[in-house]
C-alpha cells in the first residue's frame, strides 16, 4: 500500500530535519567559543542532504555527511582576555549566527510540513480502514 510508504518517506525527512536542528543547536551553542590551547577554534557544521530514491518512484532523504565550514575563524580584539594572543586578539569560532537562525527556521518549517503530511496520510488510512462500514 503506497500510503504506508508515506510514513517512511516523511519519517526520513523528519529525522533528517531534526538532525539539522541538532547541528544548528550545536553551532549556536559554540558561536562565542574561543580557541583552546591548541589554537583550534570550533568550526561550524552543516548537514548535507541527499535523496534516497527507490525504484517505485518514491524518494526519502538522509543526511549524507556533516561538513565543516571552511570559513576563517572570527578574530576579536580583546586585550584583557586570558586567551588573547600577543596582538590582543582572541580567536573565536567561525559560526555565522544569522545564517544559523535562518537555518533553524527553515528546518523547523520543513519538519512541520512533513508532520502534516504524515497526519494527512494517517487520516486517509483510517478512512480507508472504515471503507464499506458506514
Amino acid at each position, binding site marked *: 500500500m*503506497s*500510503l504506508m510508504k508515506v510514513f517512511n518517506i516523511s519519517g526520513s*525527512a523528519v529525522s533528517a530535519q531534526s538532525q539539522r536542528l541538532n547541528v544548528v543547536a550545536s553551532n549556536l551553542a559554540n558561536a562565542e567559543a574561543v580557541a583552546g590551547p591548541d589554537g583550534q577554534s570550533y568550526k561550524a557544521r552543516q548537514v548535507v542532504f541527499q*535523496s534516497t530514491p527507490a*525504484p517505485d*518512484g518514491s524518494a526519502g532523504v538522509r543526511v549524507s555527511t556533516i561538513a565543516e565550514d571552511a570559513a576563517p575563524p572570527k578574530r576579536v580584539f580583546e586585550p584583557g582576555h586570558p586567551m588573547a594572543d600577543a596582538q590582543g586578539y582572541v580567536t573565536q569560532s567561525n559560526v555565522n549566527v544569522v545564517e544559523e537562525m535562518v537555518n533553524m527556521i*527553515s528546518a523547523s518549517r520543513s519538519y512541520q510540513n512533513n508532520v502534516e*503530511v504524515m497526519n494527512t*496520510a494517517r487520516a486517509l488510512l483510517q478512512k480507508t480502514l472504515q471503507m464499506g462500514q458506514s
Partner: protein
Amino acid sequence: MSGRLTESIDFHGRALLLRAERQKVIASNIANADTPRYAARDFDFRAALAEATGYDPASRPAPAGGAAPAVRAAASASPGAGAAAPAGTVATTHAGHLGAAAGAATGARVDTTAMRYRVAEQPSLDANTVDLDRERANFADNALRYEAGLRFINGSVRTLLSAIRGE
C-alpha cells in the same frame, strides 16, 4: 445490475490506488524540499488512470450509468496533469536510472518511466525544483480526491446493501 455496481467499485478502487501512489510521490517531493539538486516529480494522473482502467475520458463517450459523470469530472479536473512538465516522458538510458528496473505497469501500479519532472517557476541556487507551496496544494487536493473516491465506494456499497436487504 450487480455487475455494473461492482464495476464502479472496481474502477474507484483502482483510482484510489493511483491516488495513494500520487500521494506518495508528492510526499517524496515535500520530504526533499531542502535536498540540493533534487528534481520534483509527478505523473499525469489522467494517463495513468486510463492505463490502469482502460477508460480514457478524453477519447471515449461516457458510458451510461450513475457514477460515470462524477468520475470523469474527477479525472479530468486533476491539476497534476497541468502542472507536470510538458517535455515528454523521462528517458532511461542507464540501468540505475529511476524506473528502468520497474518493468511494465501491472494493474493500478504506476509505471515509473511515466514519471515527469516539474518545471521550476522560480529556480533556486541549489538546483532544487520543489515548489513547496504548489506541492502542499497538490497534496491537499490529492487527499481530498482520495476521500472522494472512498465516498464513491462507500456509496456504491450502501446502495448494493440496501438493494440486497430490500429495505
